């Protein structure tokens, strides 16, 4: 059954128009991934208004292709410029930049793109197999199960996100609070508007994404001073083919990275820890661990495989449960609602052409993507040669356009500026931004699930423990929530030194 559906999906994804859309998406995505201050999430957010008039399947293909492109683009800056465009490309710089400095940039880039492709492909195959099963299970979920999953989503930010767990909690609460501003659709009452008409509409998360990630990031990078000392690319067909001949040697690293990536990836914030974990494992099992950090190809393969496997896996909870695993997935989820689709398990039965078109487009998008980036490296690297006095205002203008286009409203552009300053301050003080955005998106859903659960149980929180599925999920969520308290205690018990986790924001 699954195979037939996938075939149907390919018939949708492999039309000239949709392939064209994928090429555009990947090109824009790679540019966005290369540019400082524009990541996948706000690239998708800015382009979202342009998709309102497109058929939903083409629209989602454009946005997902943009996401793949941004994932590929991150590797280019990490290797050639030692600038990790995204948090999960940090581990790629460890060996990628030394390789580029030694004149092996072409080899490193080829390895990075190929690993990304392998990791992504592995996750897509698993999504193809597991998404329908997960959706079928999710169809039996009631409000308590959905609320438990939301709890799990947010507690994994607290438990696995690294950084200060209290600050993660603040970000989550702030997102939910901003989400609650405006009309309460259940009772029809106005909340926290204080008689101001503009507040009645509430805060749109797309505007928040553009402000927090776009403007905030550009403020941070001008503060740090934009200087690009790039290494030569050294990319040509011969290097690509030679590298491909070496790569099968790292088969075990590929498999390990893919599994780590998928496993970490369908939980929020998973891509960054996955890339670090995969790098650490590769180093531990290597015959030459001393070469890591000085330009070992395996040190590029390991984090890239895991980061992309995780980036793709983040789509799984979005299409099956309607709960996004990353800010980028959250923006896409917002898109689904705008295009008139109801995200969640019902999508598989009601809109099979959309879901399977999307899944099939993941295959085609990644195949087109890896070929395009391999061929286009010199072009994409040249983007960073644009003077920053042009790039900076350009990014601000693009962000303003994106923010305005969401509701054709000037107040959103002001919100964007305010969110930009908040994003800058929060980033500097280590408040994670991803949970805030996710909470803002999921606010209404989470509140309704909680309300309905409490109505079912006449106000008792026991409803989350008496139903078996909800109970298991709630207990896992509580475990993650308590992890920051348990981990130091557990380490002390085993006589290990305390460690600080890797900063995560996937």
């Amino acid at each position, binding site marked *: 059954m699954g195979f037939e559906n996938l075939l149907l999906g390919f018939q949708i994804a492999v039309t000239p128009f949709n392939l064209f859309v994928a090429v555009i998406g990947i090109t824009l995505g790679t540019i966005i991934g290369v540019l400082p201050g524009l990541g996948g999430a706000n690239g998708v957010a800015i382009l979202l208004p342009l998709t309102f008039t497109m058929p939903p399947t083409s629209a989602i293909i454009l946005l997902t292709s943009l996401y793949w492109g941004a994932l590929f683009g991150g590797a280019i800056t990490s290797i050639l410029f030692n600038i990790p465009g995204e948090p999960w490309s940090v581990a790629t710089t460890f060996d990628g930049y030394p390789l580029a400095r030694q004149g092996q940039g072409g080899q490193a880039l080829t390895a990075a793109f190929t690993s990304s492709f392998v990791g992504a492909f592995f996750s897509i195959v698993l999504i193809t197999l597991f998404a329908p099963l997960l959706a079928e299970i999710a169809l039996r979920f009631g409000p308590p199960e959905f609320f438990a999953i939301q709890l799990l989503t947010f507690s994994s930010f607290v438990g696995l996100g690294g950084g200060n767990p209290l*600050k993660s909690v603040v970000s989550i609460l702030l997102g939910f609070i901003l989400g609650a501003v405006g009309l309460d659709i259940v009772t029809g009452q106005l909340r926290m508007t204080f008689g101001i008409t503009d507040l009645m509409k509430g805060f749109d998360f797309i505007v928040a994404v553009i402000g927090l990630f776009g403007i905030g990031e550009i403020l941070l990078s001008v*503060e740090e001073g934009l200087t690009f000392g790039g290494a030569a690319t050294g990319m040509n067909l011969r290097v690509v083919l030679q590298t491909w001949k070496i790569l099968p040697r790292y088969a075990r690293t590929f498999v390990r990275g893919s599994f780590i990536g998928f496993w970490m990836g369908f939980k929020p914030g998973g891509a960054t820890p996955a890339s670090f974990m995969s790098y650490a494992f590769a180093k531990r099992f290597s015959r030459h661990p001393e070469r890591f950090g000085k330009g070992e190809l395996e040190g590029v393969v390991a984090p890239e495989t895991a980061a992309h496997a995780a980036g793709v896996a983040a789509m799984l909870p979005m299409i099956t449960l309607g709960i996004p695993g990353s800010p980028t997935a959250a923006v896409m989820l917002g898109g689904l609602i705008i295009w008139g689709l109801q995200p969640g398990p019902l999508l598989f039965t009601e809109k099979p052409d959309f879901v399977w078109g999307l899944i099939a487009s993941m295959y085609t998008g990644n195949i087109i993507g890896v070929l395009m980036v391999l061929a286009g490296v010199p072009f994409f690297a040249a983007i960073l040669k644009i003077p920053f006095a042009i790039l900076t205002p350009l990014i601000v203008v693009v962000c303003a356009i994106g923010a305005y286009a969401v509701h054709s409203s000037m107040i959103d552009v002001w919100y964007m500026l305010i969110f930009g300053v908040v994003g800058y301050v929060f980033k500097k003080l280590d408040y994670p931004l991803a949970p805030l955005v996710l909470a803002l998106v999921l606010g209404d859903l989470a509140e309704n699930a*909680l309300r309905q659960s409490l109505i079912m149980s006449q106000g008792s929180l026991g409803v989350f423990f008496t139903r078996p599925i909800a109970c298991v999920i709630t207990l896992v969520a509580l475990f993650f929530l308590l992890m920051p308290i348990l981990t130091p205690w557990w380490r002390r018990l085993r006589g290990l030194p305390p460690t600080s986790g890797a900063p995560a924001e996937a």
Partner: protein
Amino acid sequence: MTRTADLITAAVLLLIGAIVVSDSLRLGAGWGTDGPKSGFFPFWLGVLLLGVTIAIAIQAWRRGAGAPFVTRERLRPVLQVLWPATAMVLLTGGVSVGTVTVLPALGLYVSAAIYLAFYMRWVGHHRWITVLLVAVGIPVVTFLVFETWFLVPMPKGPLETWLGY
């Protein structure tokens, strides 16, 4: 100092928490006739926010002053982006006090052109010809993409009206 910044942020968060809690109490944070009232969910969010923020403030207080949050010379480029951007947004929508127009509403394309030109010349010291090409070229391309190709309207001013849009 980072500690000061942390404490100021915490103070703002406490204020937000207090506002949320008081507004939720106004709406009713308990159990209504048909389930939790409007203020139920925000009330607990606000209470949690107050609690966690107090914990963060105590943490920050104990940790010591730390490195400066931002130095004067590093703040300069940040403000160089922020003030002109604010001015661009002001120019886009215009400003009027009562019936008196303080700033005309130029629309997004014209303000973007001014903003690009200003920043490139002021911060980047680019040659006038480069400034002119980029500052006019980018808004024109954006106009074509948004207004004619994708039909997404942006705020427009007298220039676009004069051109017939």
